[in-house]
C-alpha cells in the first residue's frame, strides 16, 4: 500500500470513529446506539488492518480480525440481547445533561484532547501518532456518556466506547503491544460486558426498571 493511500485510509477511519462517537451522544434510541457502536467496532478493525498492511505484520492482521469479530459482532449482539430483555423502555429519555448541551460539551472535550495530546504527537510526528487526539476524544466522549446517562445499557455503551478509544490510542502509539496482551484485554472487556449484562438483568428483575438514578436509597 502506498504511503498516500495509507495516510488517507487511516485518517478516514479516524474520522469514522469520531463520527460514531458523536452519533452515540446524539441519538436517543438504544437500538440505534447499539448499531452505531457496532459500526465503530468495524471501523476500529479497519484501522488496525490498515496499520497491519502498512507494517507488514501478520500478527496485527490477526488482531484486526479478532477485533472486528468481537467489537463489531459479539459485543453488539450481547447488547442487543440485553435490550430485548429490557422490555419496552427503548430510549434514553432523560439524560442528566440534555443532548444539546452534551454535544457542546463534546466539542470542548475534543479541543481539550487535542491540546493535551500535542506533546505526545511532538515526540514522534507520524500519520499514526497525529491521530492520537481522535482516540483521546473517543475516550473522553465515552466517559461523558458513562457519567451522564441514566439507563444501564447506555452506560454500558459508554464504557465500551471508552474502551474503543483506549484501544485506538494503544494501536496508534505502539503497534507491538503483543498478541497476548491484546487477547487478555479483549477477554477482559468481553467478561465485563457479560457480568454487567447479568447485573442489568438482575436490576431489571428486582426493580422493574434499569434507570440507575432510581437506585439511590437502601430498602429492607
Amino acid at each position, binding site marked *: 500500500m502506498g504511503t498516500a493511500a495509507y495516510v*488517507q485510509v487511516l485518517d478516514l477511519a479516524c*474520522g469514522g470513529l469520531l463520527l460514531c462517537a458523536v452519533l452515540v451522544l446524539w441519538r436517543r434510541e438504544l437500538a440505534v446506539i447499539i448499531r452505531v457502536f457496532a459500526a465503530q467496532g468495524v471501523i476500529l478493525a479497519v484501522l488496525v488492518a490498515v496499520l497491519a498492511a502498512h507494517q507488514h505484520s501478520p500478527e496485527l492482521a490477526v488482531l484486526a480480525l479478532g477485533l472486528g469479530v468481537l467489537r463489531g459482532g459479539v459485543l453488539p449482539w450481547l447488547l442487543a440481547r440485553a435490550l430485548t430483555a429490557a422490555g419496552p423502555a427503548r430510549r434514553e429519555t432523560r439524560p442528566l445533561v440534555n443532548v444539546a448541551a452534551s454535544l457542546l460539551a463534546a466539542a470542548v472535550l475534543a479541543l481539550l484532547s487535542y491540546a493535551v495530546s500535542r506533546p505526545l504527537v511532538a515526540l514522534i510526528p507520524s500519520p499514526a501518532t497525529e491521530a492520537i487526539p481522535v482516540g483521546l476524544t473517543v475516550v473522553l466522549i465515552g466517559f461523558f456518556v458513562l457519567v451522564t446517562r441514566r439507563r444501564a445499557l447506555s452506560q454500558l455503551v459508554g464504557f465500551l466506547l471508552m474502551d474503543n478509544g483506549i484501544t485506538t490510542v494503544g494501536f496508534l502509539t505502539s503497534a507491538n503491544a503483543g498478541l497476548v496482551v491484546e487477547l487478555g484485554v479483549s477477554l477482559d472487556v468481553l467478561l465485563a460486558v457479560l457480568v454487567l449484562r447479568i447485573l442489568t438483568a438482575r436490576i431489571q428483575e428486582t426493580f422493574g426498571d434499569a434507570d440507575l438514578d432510581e437506585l439511590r436509597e437502601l430498602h429492607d
Partner: protein
Amino acid sequence: MSALGWAGGITQPVLIVAGSPVLVGMMRQVRARLEGRAGPGIAQPWRDLRKLFGKEAITPRGTSEVFRFAPLVQVATVGVVAVVAPFITAASALGAVADLFAVVALLALGTVALALAGLDTATAFGGMGASREMTIIALVEPTLLVAIFALSVRVGSTNLTDIVSATLRDPARMVSPVSLLAAVALVVVVVAETGRLPVDNPSTHLELTMVHEAMVLEYAGPDLALVELAAAMRLSVFLGLLANLFVPWGIATTATPLAVLVGILALAVKVGLLGAALAAGEVFLAKLRLFRVPELLAGSFLLALLAVAASFFLA
C-alpha cells in the same frame, strides 16, 4: 473579469431562476408518487407563479415598507449568490463576493428580511414564525460558516471558487475525515435552512408547527410569488453549493460553449439527484418537535467544529 466569469454570471442566474420552480415541482412529484398519489406534475410551481404574478398587489392594512421590500430583498440576495457562487463555471463574475463569509451573510440577510416582514404584520402567526426562524438561523449560520471553513483550511482561501478549483485539481483530497464530517454537518444544515422535514414541513399550511409558512401568511399576489420563487431559489442554491463543494466534476473550467453546456447539464443532474434524494428521504421522516431542533443543529455544529479541528491535527 474573465470570459469564464462572464459566462457563469449570465448563465447561472438564468438557469437557477428558470430551474428552481421545476426542482420544487420535481421534488413534490417524487413525494407524491412515493406516497401513492398521482401528483400535479413538475410544472405546477411555474403555473402557480404565473397565476400569482397576474393578480393585483395588495398588502394588509398597517404594514410598513419592511413588509413590502422583504420579498424583493430576498430575491435580490439569492440572485446575487446565484450570479457569483461557482455553480456552472469555476470562475466568478465578481471574485471578491464569492467569498464564503459574503455568500453566507447574503443568504442570512434574505432570511432576516423575511423574519422582519413576519413581525411587521403584527399577527400572532407572523411573530411566532419569525421567532422560530431566528432560533433556527442562529444555530444554522455558525454551522454553515464553520463547515465550509473546514473545507477552506487546506486550500488556504475562503473564496468558494478557489475551494472548488482546488478540489478539481486534486480529487483525492476529498476522501478525508474533514470532508466526511463537514459533509454530514452541511447536509443537516441545508435541510434545516431550506425548511424541509424534519425541521419544517414545506407542505403544511395553517398549522401550529409551521415556520416558513407562518411568516409569509399575509403575503398575496405578486409578493407571494416572489417569496415562493426566492424560497425555491434558496433550495437550489443550497443544493448546488453542497454538490459543487464535494463533487465539483462537470463544472466548466473554460469559456467554450461546449464546456458551459456540460456545466449546465452537470449542475441540473447533480441538483436533481440531491433533490430527489431529499424528497424520497422526507417520505420516511416525521417532523421533529421544535424543542428537539436545537439538538439536531447542535450536533451538526459539533461535527463542523470537529471537521475544522481535524483539518488542523490530521493533515
